[in-house]
């Protein structure tokens, strides 16, 4: 035991349906219920997880949305209590999923450093010792005595992150998807992870970014439907993950999203040019991606961004109505955006979507790694030939020689 940072024995988490008061939780729980156990009033978000994490190692956790990754992190960080099993934690745990928690808009940056640092588990003395470093790292020194309500959202994130980055826990938990929205921040997260693991700390990393998992984690756990499907070599875990079929996913119930929520994406559908649902998506076909939404109020100046991402986490291309020059105002209620993509430039393989919606430059909703879909070989070049996979996207082109 002495060399273990975490010892997880038979941990399970059961949610009761109907007892939850919170709207979003109830919503997501009842949706999940249909997947897991259609006739019961409870469902297990996690079932009988047993695994150990060595001191100083970096462990990844992967799985599809709703597989139980975040629940597991919440149990390890002691936010929520397990319904079954036993857990031993050696050392102080802190997590980068709680960036900016407790920030109060009326307080100054400096006051918020103390407030947030204390909430994250630092003592007043520790914060005092690192105060200058934190301020320096945040890059908001000039405004440190200004109430945070006057900060831009970027400044707030930077300040919050520099507080979190100066924690020195023995065990660091990172939920990458909670860092949606700011690629700068994601880079910092990864950097932070690298620093932590080289300085001998234990890191537990939840991510959809398989490339990051591959490069940082020696061992990886694959969760599916709340169960531990595999735990061991990262390469093997990723292979198994890629072989999982696609799961019926309820976009509205995805909890990990950012934005004001005035508009929320509720579904992503793939349609043919004539608006018929597609059984199979093929390279080179003209398709329409229909993004259903529900908005609580009329929105002006709406910008929708759709990104197609590989399972490894690389963004292949971006469709944005701001760039295409199509601007929308949308009424309150349910509706949909359609994005027509002629000559779908994707090779055979599995992909996911990143979605973002802005209104008047403010983020309404942002979700990542959602709606996994499969593309089948199609006649993109009208030659019947396609390059082998992992050679990027397909583009129309012509060759000549010595012309």
């Amino acid at each position, binding site marked *: 035991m002495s060399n273990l940072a975490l010892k997880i024995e038979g941990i399970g988490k059961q949610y009761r349906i109907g007892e939850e008061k919170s709207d979003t939780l109830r919503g997501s729980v009842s949706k999940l219920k249909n997947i897991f156990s259609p006739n019961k009033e409870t469902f297990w978000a996690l079932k009988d997880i047993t695994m150990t994490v060595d001191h100083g190692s970096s462990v990844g956790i992967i799985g599809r949305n709703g597989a139980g990754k975040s629940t597991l992190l919440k149990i390890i960080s*002691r936010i929520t209590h397990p319904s079954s099993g*036993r857990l031993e*934690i050696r*050392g*102080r745990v802190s*997590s980068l999923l709680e960036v900016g*928690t407790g920030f*109060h808009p*009326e307080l100054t940056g400096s006051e918020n450093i103390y407030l947030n640092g204390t*909430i994250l588990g630092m003592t007043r003395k520790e914060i005092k010792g690192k105060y200058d470093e934190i301020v320096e790292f945040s890059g908001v020194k000039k405004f440190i005595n200004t109430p945070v309500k006057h900060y831009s959202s970027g400044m707030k994130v930077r300040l919050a992150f520099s507080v979190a980055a100066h924690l020195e826990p023995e065990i660091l938990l990172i939920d990458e998807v909670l860092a949606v929205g700011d690629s700068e921040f994601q880079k910092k997260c990864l950097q932070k992870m690298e620093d932590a693991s080289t300085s001998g700390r234990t890191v537990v990393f939840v991510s959809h970014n398989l490339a990051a998992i591959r490069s940082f984690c020696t061992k990886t756990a694959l969760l599916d439907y709340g169960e531990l499907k595999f735990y061991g070599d990262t390469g093997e875990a990723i292979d198994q993950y890629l072989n999982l079929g696609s799961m019926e996913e309820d976009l509205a119930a995805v909890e990990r999203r950012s934005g004001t929520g005035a508009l929320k994406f509720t579904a992503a559908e793939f349609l043919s040019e004539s608006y018929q649902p597609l059984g199979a998506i093929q390279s080179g076909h003209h398709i329409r991606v229909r993004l259903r939404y529900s908005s609580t109020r009329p929105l002006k100046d709406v910008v929708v961004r759709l990104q197609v991402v590989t399972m490894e986490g690389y963004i292949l291309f971006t469709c944005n109505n701001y760039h295409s020059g199509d601007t929308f105002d949308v009424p309150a209620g349910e509706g949909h955006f359609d994005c027509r993509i002629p000559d779908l430039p994707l090779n055979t393989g599995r992909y996911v979507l990143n979605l973002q919606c802005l209104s008047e430059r403010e983020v309404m909703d942002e979700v990542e790694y959602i709606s996994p879909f499969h593309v089948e070989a199609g006649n993109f070049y009208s030659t019947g030939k396609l390059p082998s996979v992992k050679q990027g996207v397909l583009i129309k082109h012509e060759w000549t020689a010595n012309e």
Partner: protein
Amino acid sequence: MVEKTVIEASKSKGLSLRELLQYRDLFVILAWRDLRVRYAQTILGLLWALLQPLVTLLIFIVIFGRALNVETGEIPYPLFALSGMAAWSYFSFVLQQSGSSLINAQEMVKKIYFPRLIIPLSKSVTGFVDLLVTLIFLLILMSYYGFPPGWNLLYFPAALIAVVIVSLGAGIWTSALTIRFRDVQHIIPFIVQVGLYATPIAYPSSLIPEKWLSLYYLNPMTGVVDIFRYSLLGEPVRWELVGISLVAGLIIFITGTIYFKSMEKVISDVV
């Protein structure tokens, strides 16, 4: 030596004073934040803390002091009523603030671990500032009436401890109950309103018929108000009755803490 934490599904964590002590910085800073934020950008600032009890006091002076001519012995009526109001305002502040405290802190509760009891506990500290302001005003009023405090003032720390335990006990109960039953939020104003008259604040407990007294003193705040007056104004008390209040208060405090601990496991799932 790294600390080791063991979590078992079947066990609720017991009340650990050591852990609460470890988190004392958090406790202090949350109380400080509440204070700092409450009067930010208000012109009158802390004077607001005085205004509410003051208005009630004026109403009491007019209705009970003048119109009904309530008998308060040697003690001038305004001093009598204000000393009671000081204790009662603190109680109602802690009760009301604690009631919604966990819901208001849900962002924190859902994202990090800390002993949840810290949240209602910090409210009892915030309330001290208002209490202090009221007490200073009381002292000013006492010197105006030429009614200086006597040796009984030595009992004042006991009065403070009593009011904190009773208020916290009620606050811990309501904060945990509100998690399960949002209705509690709507019941609290009734408790505060009814309690104001079911406690000897505007009138002395000598107005209550002897046979009802032991029932009357089941209200823990009755005894607390008596101790306040005893220490500040030297009003005689019947300790056997005050004892009933204190025992009732202690029971509320202990059962509240037990109930809170049993709820702690599910708080982050339910808020």
